[in-house]
């Protein structure tokens, strides 16, 4: 829709399924350069499946274009190499590896020499990670693991960051700090982000645009301001 460079992510008629059970019923949405887009949805609405379909973890049909190039049907590791960084639900930490090793794992696909400087950068953004750098990642708290997961994803210097319910299992204060950081990151590095969440008011604060997902179908979309005003959204997600 936007005239400028092709949007970072273009999804058309996305249908995903787990074996015989069909979960996504023809989603279409897109994420533009340096934009944060949120997909709001209750439990079981297909949020996680949407991200997993994009990153190739589940079988899907339709079309998913990354910077104009079709990536649907490719293996997850290939999609990751194309620049899609996916922070899975429950953070997917490498529990037995140390914090630093988790970060280095993130940079697995990179050949450039700035890996060490990047690690120091993320230690700067999340100082607590630096304190625990030699510690096994599994022994850290939920919040710390979330910060590690985001940093690890960003170590891939991706074009698009997928975040699956980052607020899951975090204390409100920690969630607030995390979302604030995500906003700052987007403004500093103008990296495009697609966040699926239930926590509407926090996400809508930092998101530019958003969609509402119910039972595998998009039922509403618009700028974050419009969505904040939308009655349905207010009733379902803002508890107003």
């Amino acid at each position, binding site marked *: 829709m936007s005239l400028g460079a092709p949007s970072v992510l273009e999804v058309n008629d996305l249908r995903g399924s787990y074996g015989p059970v069909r979960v996504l019923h023809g989603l279409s949405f897109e994420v533009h350069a340096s934009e944060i887009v949120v997909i709001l949805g209750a439990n079981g609405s297909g949020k996680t499946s949407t991200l997993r379909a994009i990153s190739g973890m589940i079988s899907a049909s339709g079309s998913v274009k990354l910077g104009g190039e079709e990536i649907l049907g490719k293996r997850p590791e290939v999609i990751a190499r194309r620049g899609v960084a996916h922070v*899975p639900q429950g953070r*997917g930490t490498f529990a*037995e590896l140390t914090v630093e090793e988790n970060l280095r*794992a993130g940079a*697995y696909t990179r050949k450039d020499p700035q890996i060490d400087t990047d690690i120091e950068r993320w230690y700067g953004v999340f100082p607590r990670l630096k304190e625990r750098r030699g510690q096994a990642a599994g022994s850290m708290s939920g919040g710390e693991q979330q910060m590690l997961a985001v940093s690890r994803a960003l170590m891939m210097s991706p074009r698009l960051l997928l975040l699956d319910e980052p607020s899951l299992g975090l204390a409100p204060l920690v969630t607030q700090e995390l979302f604030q950081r995500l906003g700052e990151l987007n403004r500093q590095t103008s990296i495009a982000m697609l966040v699926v969440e239930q926590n509407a008011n926090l996400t809508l604060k930092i998101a530019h645009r958003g969609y509402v997902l119910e039972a595998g179908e998009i039922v509403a979309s618009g700028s974050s301001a419009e969505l904040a005003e939308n009655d349905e959204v207010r009733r379902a997600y803002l508890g107003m």
Partner: protein
Amino acid sequence: MTLFVQQLLIGIGNGVIYASVALALVLIYRTTGILNFAQGEMALVTTYVLWQLTDSGVPIGAAVPLAVVVGFVMGALIERVIVRRVEESSALTVVIVTIGMFLAANSIAQFFFGSDSKIVPRSIPDKATTIADVKITLQPIALAGLLVLECLVLWLLLQRTKLGLALRAVSSNPDSSRLVGISTGTMLMAGWAIAAALGALGGAAAVSGGEALDASLMQRLLVFAFAAAAIGGFDSPLGAVVGGIIVGVANAMTTTYLADANNGVDWLKGITLVVPFGLIALVLLFRPTGLFGRRVVERV
């Protein structure tokens, strides 16, 4: 006293062989979660290849590394062609596949290389020195050195290389590994390849002192290698090494003192296997996942 030292050295010599095979078992278990019954028989095949190389003129010094490379390639092929299809299936299904490989490998090896015993030139010269009137042969010392080298190389590979990091990442969380761009398939193949190479070294060690090579070479060790891995804790390479040495020394000491025909414990006479398995039971009673095994924390 000298007998004790000699037996200790023999125990260490044998222990190194058990440790090498146990190391291969542990490596495959850590990277793929599979207990590979056919590990020993894969090492038998590479040892037959070693014999074939020396038989057709290749000096032993070059034949051993070549055999290790053949082992490496064979391990990768076996994972890619046979094991990959069942990697997603239940543990029991995979155990049956490895048992199938166990039966097939021995039989196919005999089909190609014949059933008679073979002679492999010594890879460790038959030298001996006497220190404080204790006659010490070179073999156990050299084998211990080989094992230390093996551990060092393995440690460096796992801890200090990108491949090592990827291997450990896949073994820790396969899904997340794919999300950061690591191809789990390639890593599983690498795990099997490295393990098969270690097994090849174990096989070469088993015939390093001119011992005879025949189809039962590795089956005899299977029980001891498993014992070593179990005592050490199945997910720790260091445990496999320590376990191997413990089993080797325990065997030597049992034969010499406990099960000896004229002065040993009467009911134990001739039963050499009781101590390694007594040891397993003992260790596992106190440390259910072995000396160095990670305690499996079950998230309720």
